């Protein structure tokens, strides 16, 4: 793979180049006689959700390259070189199963994935049976971590919903609207928890509850309803792709309410034609590309892929480092030892300092990010 040098654009060329340099680094490492540790990973590389999978993959690639260049992972007496095998699952459950099994066939040692919730849920029992450590970068439904071998890097949906509801109450908004994707479990999960928490606090706060479906690009109808409801704040638990359309059309419709978003908003600045549209918007994010801690990663990522990394890339990156930490802590690459070690490690990642509970959930602090002067700013 990666030898398709005939591609036409700059982006593709750099991708190929990055992969090649990765391979070269790996080749160099080979001569030092390192053992290989295969990290399997799946996510959508094609289809409508492709950008999320691609981000995770690229984040992982950066992390692996860094680790290998720094001499691999020292486990007891052996040094391991990390190798990534990323399979496309098209964000479909059935494809996720075969993608996962392909990785087992390839002899993977640990698994990072899946990127999307449905695909991930289809895999957790398989990884449990196959006795493989699984860390999902971004599958956020609660049920994902039910098996003891599964850990999660991102926040759960309900957690985000609750936190944002709290934010709304704390900041004294009197009328709030929510616009969510009813065919997406991420959006639905956050929405439900949000509405529940908000109504528990004050049932009169929520003045409009509108939804849309995956693939929709026109939100004018819902926005008109929201506008006419007089909401002062609009909460959009969705990914940046949808958000870009929503804020654009909200601006065109002359809406003046504040925006608040879930972590899916990360990357929204790269998606709007004019940053002014999202000026002042607040969203929850574990990752902030403008922070000093991320500077190194961001510059590497930009050099390799010609794009600013988003939350998905950061999650993928951190997952690889979590595995590295677990390997070192366990002093072994046996799955039991790795799982045991997961609850003992602390990863100082791009998405903050994180430890893992036995339930598989991450313990880390959420950051609110505000867009100020067209820049992401920590609050």
């Amino acid at each position, binding site marked *: 793979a990666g030898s398709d040098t005939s*591609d*036409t*654009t700059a*982006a*593709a060329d750099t991708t190929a180049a990055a992969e090649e340099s990765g391979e070269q680094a790996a080749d160099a490492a080979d001569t030092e006689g390192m053992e290989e540790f295969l990290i399997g990973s799946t996510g959508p*590389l*094609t*289809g*409508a959700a*492709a*950008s999320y999978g*691609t*981000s995770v993959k690229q984040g992982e690639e950066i992390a692996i390259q860094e680790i290998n260049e720094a001499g691999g992972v020292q486990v007891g007496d052996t040094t391991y070189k990390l190798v990534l095998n990323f399979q496309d699952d098209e964000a479909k459950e059935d494809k996720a199963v075969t993608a996962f099994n392909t990785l087992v066939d390839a002899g993977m040692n640990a698994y990072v994935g899946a990127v999307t919730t449905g695909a991930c849920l289809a895999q957790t029992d398989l990884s449990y049976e196959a006795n493989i450590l699984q860390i999902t970068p971004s599958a956020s439904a609660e049920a994902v971590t039910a098996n003891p071998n599964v850990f999660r890097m991102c926040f759960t949906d309900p957690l985000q919903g609750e936190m944002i509801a709290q934010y709304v109450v704390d900041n004294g908004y009197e009328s709030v609207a929510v616009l969510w994707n*009813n065919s997406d479990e991420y959006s639905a999960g956050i929405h439900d928890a949000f509405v529940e928490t908000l109504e528990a606090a004050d049932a009169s706060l929520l003045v409009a509850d*509108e*939804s*849309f*479906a995956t*693939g*929709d*690009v*026109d939100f*004018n*109808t*819902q926005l*008109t*309803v929201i506008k*006419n409801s007089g909401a002062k704040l609009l909460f959009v638990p969705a990914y940046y*792709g949808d958000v*870009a*359309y929503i804020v*654009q059309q909200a601006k*065109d*419709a*002359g809406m003046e309410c504040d925006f608040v978003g879930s972590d899916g908003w990360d990357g929204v600045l*790269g*998606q*709007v*034609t*004019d940053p002014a549209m999202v000026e002042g918007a607040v969203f929850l994010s574990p990752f902030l590309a403008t922070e000093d801690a991320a500077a190194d990663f961001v510059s590497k990522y930009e050099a390799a892929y010609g*794009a600013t990394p988003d939350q998905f890339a950061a999650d993928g990156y951190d997952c690889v480092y979590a595995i590295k930490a677990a390997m070192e802590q366990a002093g072994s690459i046996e799955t039991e030892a790795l799982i045991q070690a997961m609850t003992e490690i602390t990863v100082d990642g791009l998405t903050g300092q994180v430890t893992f509970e036995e339930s598989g959930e991450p313990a880390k602090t959420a950051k609110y990010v505000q867009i100020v002067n067209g820049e992401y700013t920590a609050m």
Partner: protein
Amino acid sequence: MLTSIMEQLINGLRTGSIYALIALGYTMVYGIAKMINFAHGDIIMVGAYTLYIGIALLHLPVLPAMLLTAVVCSVLGMLIEKIAYKPLRKAPPLAVLITAIGMSYFLQSVALLIFSSTPIPFKSVIEVEGIQVGTVNISGITIVTLAVTTVIMVGLTLFINRTKAGSAMRAVSEDRGAAELMGINVNRTISMTFAIGSALAAVAGILYICQYQSLRPTLGALPGIKAFVAAVLGGIGSVPGAMLGGIMLGLIESLSKAYISTELADAIVFGVLVVVLLVRPSGLLGKKKLVKV
């Protein structure tokens, strides 16, 4: 309440006019070549990216960039026809449908490889002031889209019914063999149909991207399907029907989202479609096909 209904109607018009524009291309190709060109939506996508290349990368002025888009799409349409559909002229119609689906996958994957899956923001190149009707604002792009769609609809109707090339198209759509016997070059006629259909897709791509301002490889898929539905609603093969169907679809969508349920909006829209077709089995303006026994 009245303003809100007005506003929602205008929202419906806004999406409806885009559907209508795309549906025109669909109906045109369907009416003549008797095939559902599933790749039509993806030609729209190619059109959108071409405009982007013209303006953002080649720094062309707006009009030449649009022209470039139309040319690229027309040529692409003809190429697709030549490579993928023409070898299947004698095959059952469904074989062509499947090839069209393959073509749709193909275009999407090529776009994905070239431009990656991350959406690219793109600022509208059509700057037209909206108009204020009472308290309601109709955006400039909606007006432009409606105007363009109407002009195209009228032009296409005249072209098909009044010109020689148009009548050749109608003959080809009925019986290719007999058309050949009239001295009509069937291959060229079909090629031309695809060229025109794809040029319409280019126009749709331009207006679409100016309206929604974000480029992604899959952007043509959903409007493609919606427009197909619109074309059938209006009576597939009927040019005015495509326009009517598109606008109706937009209006129904908007009103059911606004006043019934956003969650069930799709179900309602399709439900209305089913009911309309049960009452008028050949769509709103479609001609009932006569079979004499």
